[in-house]
């Protein structure tokens, strides 16, 4: 393979204190006992640095659930990687934050589920919102880049303006407005999460206005959900082209969802080197190049831009990992996405709960609405 990977996604655990309904972890979570050791992760980072990777993204589950996180960050930093921590913030106080920054943490990205406490806790399935606010204040005392990650969907998009104003007061350098993608738990809960046309149109206008207002102070990154787009996303920058993900048990994947694909055998860092896996393994080679593409992708002028979209989404919705991602308007199976969007916009679709005094009340009102993410054994 003539190009090197740019970034390592270190999915260090599937343990998490929250139960967010939009979680994109696989529904089959890696058992705690299967997790790699500190030394095994240090070896992964060392190899990543030698392979020329620039970034390490610490994620999970909740990466803070690993007691050795500071050592892991130090190992990645030593290997020359820029370190990003993608976290809910639960498990982090000022003292622990200091140890992580001292260990070499470059960037922390904290998720927020909503601007209002009851709704935020309802989406996360746990009392987490107040702690996140406190943590955001603590972060500003340290020399580390700070991004707020706001996951948006049907249940909170009506408050987008309010949520952006709320985030502005937290004073991050960057905001990611992340429309939910449908993998893992999010796919199971798709009907409750899919926004309406009206919500999306309004969101685009609100974000454009906020970008102007924030120019030079806060950078906004936002992506339109692919179900509503004309063409599919270039998922992960292409299969095996830019990123490698190592899961808690050491399995090496081209993305967080790939284990759903049948007929593929993924390698493990306990057995093979990252370099060999990147360059030689059948799994990483499977969807590189264009030979695997069916029509219309094979002769499409966009094929080198979006690579026919997401293989995992093609499998999850169509049952065939080689199919054109049905999010693409040119896909033979585009009707699968169209009908999900249609349902979201129909009168019979999911109603939103009325205001309640606490998130427990909201949960009681909406018992059948969705499935909360569980924890691994």
């Amino acid at each position, binding site marked *: 393979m003539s190009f090197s990977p*740019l970034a390592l996604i270190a999915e260090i655990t599937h343990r998490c204190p929250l139960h967010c309904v939009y979680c994109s972890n696989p529904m089959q979570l890696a058992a705690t006992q299967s997790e790699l050791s500190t030394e095994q992760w240090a070896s992964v980072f060392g190899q990543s640095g030698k392979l020329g990777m*620039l*970034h390490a993204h610490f994620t999970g589950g909740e990466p803070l659930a690993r007691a050795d996180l500071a050592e892991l960050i130090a190992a990645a930093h030593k290997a*020359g990687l*820029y370190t*990003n921590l993608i976290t809910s913030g639960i498990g982090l106080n000022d003292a622990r934050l200091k140890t992580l920054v001292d260990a070499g943490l*470059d*960037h922390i*990205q904290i998720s927020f589920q909503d601007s209002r406490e009851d709704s935020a806790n309802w989406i996360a399935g746990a009392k987490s919102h107040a702690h996140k606010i406190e943590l955001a204040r603590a972060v500003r005392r340290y*020399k*580390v*880049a*700070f*991004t707020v990650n706001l996951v948006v969907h049907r249940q909170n998009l009506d408050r987008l303006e309010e949520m952006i104003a709320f985030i502005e007061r937290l004073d991050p*350098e*960057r905001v990611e407005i992340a429309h939910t993608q449908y993998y893992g738990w999010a796919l199971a809960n798709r009907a409750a999460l899919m926004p309406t046309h009206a919500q999306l149109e309004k969101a685009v206008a609100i974000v454009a206005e906020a970008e102007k207002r924030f*120019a*030079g*102070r*806060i*950078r906004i*990154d936002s992506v339109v959900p692919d179900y509503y787009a004309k063409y599919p996303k270039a998922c992960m920058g292409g299969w095996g082209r830019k990123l490698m993900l190592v899961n808690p048990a050491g399995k090496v994947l081209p993305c967080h969802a790939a284990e759903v694909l049948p007929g593929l055998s993924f390698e493990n860092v306990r057995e093979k080197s990252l370099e060999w896996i990147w360059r030689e393994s059948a799994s990483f080679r499977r969807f590189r190049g264009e030979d695997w593409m069916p029509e219309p992708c094979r002769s499409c002028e966009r094929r080198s831009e979006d690579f026919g979209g997401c293989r995992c989404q093609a499998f999850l919705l169509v049952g065939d990992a080689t199919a054109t991602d049905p999010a693409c308007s040119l896909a033979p199976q585009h009707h699968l996405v169209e009908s999900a969007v249609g349902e979201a916009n129909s009168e019979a679709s999911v109603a939103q709960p009325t205001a309640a005094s606490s998130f427990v009340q909201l949960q009681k009102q909406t018992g059948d609405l969705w499935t909360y993410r569980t924890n691994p054994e």
Partner: protein
Amino acid sequence: MAPPLDSSQPRLAAGCRWAPSTTGADENRMILFPEGAIKLQGTGRQVLERCDGQRTFGEIIAELQKEFGQTDPEKIRADISTFLEQLQKKRIVDY
């Protein structure tokens, strides 16, 4: 956000840093920041290497005007100002 003043002291923003230098050809250097990296070479690199939070914008311009004696000094000033403004918008540089 306005362009830098002569008295501004440009520096890399919090969480933005140079990639550790690798062996071999050092003409390119990378700056790493949240979710990204940019490759810098030539003048871009020379400008950013001087954005140490100590040197003023005026001093940086003067150094580079001396270095590139053949080029119109006003063009150097305008180009560097635009360059830094773009990086400021991306939150890579502060001044």
